[in-house]
C-alpha cells in the first residue's frame, strides 16, 4: 500500500471511501459523482483490499476513465466521452 499518491496527479476533488467495501462504497461514489460535470477528476481513496479489482470493473461499466492507480489511490475522470470540446 502506497503512503501517498504520485506528485504529478491532478484532480478537482477527492473521495475517501475509507474501509468501506463492495456495494456500500460503490453506491456512495455513484451518488457523489452523479451531479458532477464530464471531465471532473477525482482522487479516489479506498483501503478495501478488493479495490484494485472493483474500481477498474466499475470504471469499465460506467465509462469513467481510470487514469492511474496506486492502491489505495485511484485517479478517475468522470465521463470523459461526454466532454464538450
Amino acid at each position, binding site marked *: 500500500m502506497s503512503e501517498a499518491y504520485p506528485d504529478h496527479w491532478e484532480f478537482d476533488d477527492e473521495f475517501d471511501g475509507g474501509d468501506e467495501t463492495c456495494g*456500500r462504497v460503490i453506491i456512495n461514489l455513484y451518488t457523489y459523482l452523479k451531479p458532477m460535470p464530464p471531465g471532473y477528476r477525482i482522487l479516489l481513496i479506498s483501503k478495501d483490499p478488493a479495490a484494485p479489482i472493483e474500481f477498474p470493473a466499475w470504471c469499465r*461499466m460506467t465509462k469513467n476513465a481510470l487514469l492511474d492507480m496506486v492502491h489505495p489511490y485511484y485517479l478517475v475522470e468522470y465521463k470523459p466521452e461526454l466532454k464538450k470540446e
Partner: protein
Amino acid sequence: MADKFCVTITHCRTDGDKATLGFVVANAAQGSEKETMVFLSSDGVYCAVKGEAEKIDEGAPFAPLKELVGKFVNAGGKVYVCTPCLKKRGLGENDLVDGATPAGGAALVEWLSSGSPCVGY
C-alpha cells in the same frame, strides 16, 4: 453487456445475512449504472414491510438493512414485492415502505427476458 440487473431475495426474518447481501449487491449494480430491480419473494417480502428492515443489522462491515434499502431506492433502484407472498402472510400494499411496488411473476419474467442477468439470495 446488458444494461439491466436483477437481484432476487427470498430471506429477511429467516436469514438477515442473505437479505443484507442481496441489497449490498443491488447497490453495487445500481451504483454501476445498471437499471436494477430487486424482486422480493417468500420471506424476502419482509425487507419491504414497514418496521421490518429496522430489525436486521448484521453489524460491521455491513450497513443496517434499512439504510441499504433506502440508498437503493434513493439511487433509482426498483423494489418489486411478490403479491401472493404478501397475501399468504396477511400483508398488503399498505404494509409496504415507500418505493416498494407489489408485482407478480410476469414483471419478473419480462425483466429477465429482456436479457437481464439475475443473482439470487
